[in-house]
């Protein structure tokens, strides 16, 4: 075998061995960076979404709709200080929906989601404007997207009077779909969102 080829083989072998040795530290470093990023995101989330409190807050038993199994949402009674003002009340409810699921398995919206704005129009239309994370971090699929919309609509319909329909915006814009499947160009009917939990797999009727 030519001497040059031997040298090549030796160096290649050494390179592979060195690579294998450095693989584990590299993996640990990636995990560390990932954890760090996650912690930073949590901190940023906490800064961006501080608890909302208003002078009219009264602690009541609110019904928040989280996942109850892999394919439906169901109400959970939660003691929450809620404002008398419907806009502030809605923001408090949606913040609780995002931030305080009883368990990660019950989460319907990505943890990094923030409610950027919330309005109520005089005709009873609620407009909820979420950050990009609601679309970018939600698992794609009709089921998961419909559960996300359902949890928002039912939570609002169960706890805020006078809301008739819901419009969901992302980053201030109307978007075609939530995460590739569920249509967000329409309005979700909140009057039918108060169906019994047994029918929770039935979608909230958009109009």
């Amino acid at each position: 075998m030519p001497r040059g080829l031997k040298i090549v083989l030796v160096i290649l072998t050494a390179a592979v061995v060195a690579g294998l040795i450095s693989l584990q530290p590299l993996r640990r470093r990636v995990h560390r960076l990932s954890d760090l990023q996650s912690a930073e995101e949590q901190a940023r989330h906490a800064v961006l979404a501080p608890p909302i409190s208003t002078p009219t807050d009264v602690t009541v038993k609110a019904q928040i709709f989280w996942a109850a199994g892999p394919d439906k949402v169901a109400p959970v009674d939660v003691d929450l200080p809620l404002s008398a003002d419907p806009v502030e009340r809605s923001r408090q409810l949606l913040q609780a929906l995002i931030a305080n699921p009883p368990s990660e398995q019950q989460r319907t919206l990505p943890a990094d989601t923030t409610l950027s704005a919330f309005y109520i129009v005089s005709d009873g239309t609620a407009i909820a404007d979420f950050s990009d994370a609601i679309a970018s971090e939600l698992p794609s699929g009709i089921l998961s997207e419909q559960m996300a919309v359902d949890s928002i609509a039912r939570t609002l319909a169960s706890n805020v009077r006078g809301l008739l329909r819901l419009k969901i915006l992302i980053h201030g814009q109307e978007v075609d779909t939530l995460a590739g499947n569920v249509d967000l160009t329409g309005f979700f009917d909140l009057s039918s969102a108060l169906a019994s939990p047994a029918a929770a797999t039935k979608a909230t009727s958009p109009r």
Partner: protein
Amino acid sequence: MMRSRFDPDRNDAPGLGRAAHNISAMLCVVRTSIFSWAFFLAVGSRALLLPAWPMPSSPQEEPQSAPQPAPPAPVAGANGPVVVLDPAHGGTDTGARGEGGIAERDIVLQMARTVREQLLIQGYRVVLTRKDDSNPSYDDRAAIANAYREAVFVSLHVASTGTPGTVRAYYDQLSTAIAPEPTLAIKSASGLVVWEQAQRPYIDVSRHLADAIQSRLARSFPGSPSQSTGAAVRALRSIMAPSVAIETSSISQSNRDALTGSAGPISSAISDGIAALRPSSAAGEK
């Protein structure tokens, strides 16, 4: 012919030739090791950095392929409506993503091919909205279905979530993209159907079709619901025909065959559903 100064074959300087040979070999080694490292790091980093959480889809990112407006010639002896099978997503829009690179866009295409073959055997005329890894727009897909006078549109999906091994049939509940008023006109002043409202006259018949399919799916896939579900499925909004979406759970299954293997029972359910629907399918307005 010009010769390199360090050409090892030069007879006039054998010592210099050996030195040149060694240097050349060393350079080769350095280049090879650099490429090896680069390759190793690229592959290793990619494997390490792939996220465990399914990546979001990016619908409509790639240039949309041209619609296929020309209906294919009917198959000899075919009967009943044209079944337009829609493998969801495609191209850069992967849809749901599982571990090991499994992607909804690939699974549903494979499922659509299987369902197509089985429906053809049963005498149906079948059209696919995409035959490869392209990503037609929602409107392009709708245009294919709307080119037929009597069609049934079936959009195939794989979920990110849900109990593995269960399958759901959906019908569209969305009716407007413009205004919330339920009285919003379905037809324009000229009498043409508003594209965004095209599914509205077919919602009832679509629900019957979805229920018929779901009842059969429930028998083939234990744990599946017995009734279909209404949802604002974007793919169904502009279809001027009975239309359903069928979503299999879930992409989290490590066994790809378990997902693609569901195509057989799904095609039977579609066939039975259409057969149950046919007496009332003519109610739809074209």
